């Protein structure tokens, strides 16, 4: 079990050299930025006040060196930091996807695809941002330190005023804005809701058009949009007020500084240039302090994201193996004994190697449970399943799936062409999809194809995989009767001599099977050919005939 801290420290270790280089350069940049107001103060004191061109040239040269240094360090420091952040996020993204796709499964059990995608993008990015935040934090502290040293060596009193006053100012601003921030967060959520509603209505455009409900949808959106506008305006008022308060506080602080610095300078405790530097540094100090506040938020968010990533990465696998090998040539004999799982009750079932068997279930839940166990997405609550005498529980799930393919009813197509998804022309032909050009793009999740086309391409893909054992689930529910009959024939021809199980209630497919098992009450209730079952079993007739 790994924690969020492990994820963070691994990310930091993985980008160590970039992080060190970036931190050093970032510190150099902040030191340079702190020196600029100091140098301007010195130039005014020594060159401008005395109207001396030669001194001016000296100070301008010093300023040029500092500018070059700070610009260079900023450019290459920030570059190293950004690279470290994006690379760490990328590595994490790959690790997350690898974990989800791991043959043992288990990571996607309680998480919806949208949530998984969110973890692989937003959370991975936030963990990466922690690296940039660490680097920025180091740079910010350096700026703070340089400014402090300069101020305290100028005048302890003035230095203390600036060093205590600036953070106090920011803290006060933060305190005042806290309730406003909370309110604005709630209201921003309502604004995001409006955009969600719009996207939802557009994705349901076909349904709206079909019903002629466009006007009702527009009215609904207008209502949401107006509610959201009112919320946004409340949030904007809160934010504007916060802005105003910060401006007023800053003004008061500068006034205080002018009073203290002016008094010290009037007493001759500090020089004119030091006064100018102090005012400049007070303005500069806000930069590093804002940076540190940003670092703080990023770290908090990064920790939360790292915890989510860690939970995903260390999710226990749904199935494992104990290293038992399958025979080199899998014959494909399946044997189930006392299997209880989902809709299955103490199911005993034997399938001879090379058989084409139909399985008709009166309860869809029993069919789903059977497929779940055969594909080893989970192991049965009790009972054993053996392939060629080897218990499935002991076989590495990846090796098992080289031998057994369970083609689920809701299998998805992936972005690409029909050929990318469905394999060879021969397989497409067997699945009754010869009318589809192999170059046709299937679109996102097969969205460019009709339901029937999607199903036939998925069937072709399953046939093309040529596994010793093939389990098909309702492969033709969206296919017309003539094509369905043709498909039944070609499945029979193509899978000749190889174990094939078709879980369906479609008579066309069941009639092509060597024999048919009727699953009722979670166990095998009858076992004969389709024709015989039709003749003798009323439950079967009810299950398969419309």
């Amino acid at each position: 079990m790994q924690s969020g801290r492990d994820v963070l420290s691994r990310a930091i270790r993985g980008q160590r050299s970039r992080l060190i280089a970036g931190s050093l350069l970032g510190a150099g940049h902040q030191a340079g930025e702190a020196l600029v107001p100091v140098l301007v103060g010195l130039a005014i004191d020594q060159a401008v006040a005395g109207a001396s061109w030669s001194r001016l040239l000296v100070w301008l040269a010093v300023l040029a060196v500092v500018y070059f240094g700070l610009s260079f360090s900023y450019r290459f420091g920030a570059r190293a930091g950004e690279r470290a952040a994006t690379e760490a996020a990328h590595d994490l993204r790959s690790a997350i996807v690898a974990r989800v796709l791991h043959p043992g499964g288990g990571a996607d059990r309680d998480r919806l695809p949208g949530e998984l995608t969110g973890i692989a993008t937003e959370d991975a990015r936030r963990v990466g941002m922690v690296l940039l935040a660490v680097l920025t934090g180091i740079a910010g502290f350096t700026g703070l330190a340089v400014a402090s040293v300069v101020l305290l060596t100028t005048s302890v009193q003035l230095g203390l005023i600036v060093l205590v006053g600036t953070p106090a100012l920011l803290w006060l601003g933060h305190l005042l804005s806290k309730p406003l921030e909370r309110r604005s967060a709630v209201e921003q959520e309502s604004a995001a809701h409006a955009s969600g509603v719009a996207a939802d209505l557009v994705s349901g455009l076909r349904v709206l058009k079909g019903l002629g409900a466009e006007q009702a949808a527009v009215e609904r959106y207008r209502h949401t949009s107006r509610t959201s506008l009112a919320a946004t305006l409340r949030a904007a008022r809160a934010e504007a007020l916060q802005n105003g308060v910060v401006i007023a506080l800053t003004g008061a602080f500068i006034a205080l500084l002018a009073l203290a610095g002016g008094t010290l300078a009037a007493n001759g405790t500090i020089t004119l240039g030091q006064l100018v530097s102090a005012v400049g540094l007070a303005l500069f100090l806000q930069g590093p302090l804002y940076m540190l506040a940003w670092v703080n938020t990023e770290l908090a968010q990064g920790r939360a994201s790292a915890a989510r990533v860690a939970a995903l990465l260390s999710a226990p696998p749904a199935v494992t193996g104990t290293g038992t090998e399958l025979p080199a040539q899998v014959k494909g004999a399946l044997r189930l004994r006392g299997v209880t799982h989902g809709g299955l009750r103490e199911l005993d079932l034997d399938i001879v190697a090379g058989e084409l068997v139909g399985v008709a279930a009166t309860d869809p839940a029993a069919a789903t449970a059977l497929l779940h166990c055969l594909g080893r997405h989970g192991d049965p609550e009790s009972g054993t399943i053996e392939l060629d005498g080897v218990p499935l529980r002991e076989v590495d799930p990846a090796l098992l799936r080289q031998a057994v393919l369970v083609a689920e009813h809701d299998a998805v197509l992936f972005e690409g062409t029909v050929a990318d998804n469905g394999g060879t022309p021969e397989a497409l032909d067997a699945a009754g999809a010869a009318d589809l050009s192999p170059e046709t793009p299937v679109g996102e999740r097969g969205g460019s194809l009709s339901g029937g086309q999607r199903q036939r391409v998925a069937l072709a893909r399953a046939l093309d995989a040529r596994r010793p054992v093939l389990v098909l689930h309702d492969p033709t529910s969206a296919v017309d009767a003539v094509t369905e009959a043709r498909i039944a024939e070609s499945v029979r021809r193509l899978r000749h001599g190889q174990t094939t199980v078709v879980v369906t209630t479609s008579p066309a497919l069941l009639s092509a099977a060597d024999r048919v098992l009727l699953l009722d009450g979670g166990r095998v209730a009858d076992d004969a050919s389709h024709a015989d079952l039709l003749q003798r079993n009323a439950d079967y007739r009810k299950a398969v005939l419309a």
Partner: protein
Amino acid sequence: MKDLLPTATPARARAAVREIIRPHRAVAAAGFGLLIVATSVGLLVQPLLGYVVDLVAGRQPATLLTTPVALLVLVGVVQGLLTSWGLVLVARFGETALAELRERFVERALSLPLERVERAGSGDLTSRVTGDVARVAEAVRSALPALARSLLSIVLTLVAMAVLDWRFMVAALLAIPVQLHTGRWYVRNAVPLYAAQRVATGEQQQQLLDTLAGATTVRSLRAEADHLARVDGRSRAAVELTMRGVHLMLRFYSRLHIGEYIGLAAVLAAGVLLVGEGAVTVGTATAAALYFLNLFGPINTALALLDDAQAATASLARLIGVADVAATETPRPAHGDGVSVRGLGHAYEPGRPVLHGVDLEIEPGKRVALVGPSGAGKTTLAKIVAGVHEPTTGTVRAPAGIAMVTQEVHVFAGPLADDLRLASPQATDADLRAALATVEALEWAEALPDGLATVVGQGGHRLTGAQRQQLALARLVLTDPALAVLDEATAEAGSTGARTLERAVEQAIDGRTALIVAHRLTQAASADRVVVMDGGRVVEDGSHDDLRQAGGRYAGHWAAWTRHHAHDDQ
């Protein structure tokens, strides 16, 4: 090649923005006016600090400091108040205009002909609704006020420097050519780069969703390595584009540093010159230097916002492009309760017709089933009859109230009752229950965690495929159309659920004229007439019994179906 939805020209976009802004002119003027006054008041800080310097340089007693210090406090308070007020007004102006823009956009988007949207790919419209609206909103919300305040600061600071002495302003302006050139260079490079970056990020997101949502299928097919490589490739591409953007931005800041240095050096040199001439005091020179140091922030902000502004402008053009599409849908003249189709032809792409010379009559109250292999043109014909597509040639006459239900069902996010009320906004709870009962969905709907108030759709309670279909049929019942068009409305349910849905369909279309695209022939057998299509033509048309005896294609279909249903059919 996808035929994307239109994008407005820059001139048209400007005109549309002016049109939207016009009613809010007064608020906008007041808001920006207040910000101008606030910024001007804020610029009194530097001369006041300069005055403090002069008092010190002139060896005046420390008690004289009270007046400038009190004034500094006053300046802060007044500036804070005015800024708050100005920002509130600017937000009211921007947000109201934005709300009007997005409402107008959504209204137009929903009234676009479906065919047009499909030609562009559904992603085009969705990305405009989400991405572009968000980008424009972001610009209005943060970039617009920040840009306004920065520009005001820059202009008014330069004016203030000129007030100190015109030569200070000239010195400050020496930095302008570098900054302007840098800004233009940046925008020129950033706009295409960020556009490419958005595309790459979108592709990465799409690939992740594709792979992660299909994880079970990926594992079943042992395609893990392939999918990992796909995700890695997309992610790598997005990383490299992000880094190119970072490099560009950092080079941008490097160049701005040069500008800063030139300006600072020039202002200090002007100080030496003017103090030497006795034209200004050291305090004034200090004020000028402080002014210039304070310019860095606003200038960097303004230049960095240039690409936000560019991106928002591009998004705005894409929104206005859609909002400007003329509503091409001309309502078809209503015609009794029956359907009459004459010489219908249709091509989605020129030169590739999918329907040829189709004639179809449906008498009021009768039910016609469309049968034929995939790709025969059944769905296209159904969509044209439903008025969703405009035919390329031929005429269609149909009744006024039409509702179509397809196998693509969408559940609208929100309470179940709200979803149903899209079909009939005035429906009472009793109406909703009655409609659900008609399609045998009332039982499960009431068993949901919060009954009809249960939040369904994206992010809500997940409904099964069959439940979604029943919901679609319940909407049809609520619409109470004269003509119901159903396209394989029972396909997704698997064979067991299909029978429940068939009953639901029967009850939903009871008493209506109906056109049903059927792949389960039981639906054809119970229709008043069966129309068989193949290759975009009607090949047979008659009653179930007549066609069965005619020995044509339908008889073939029926034979394939009944070979397995022999016992039941007798």
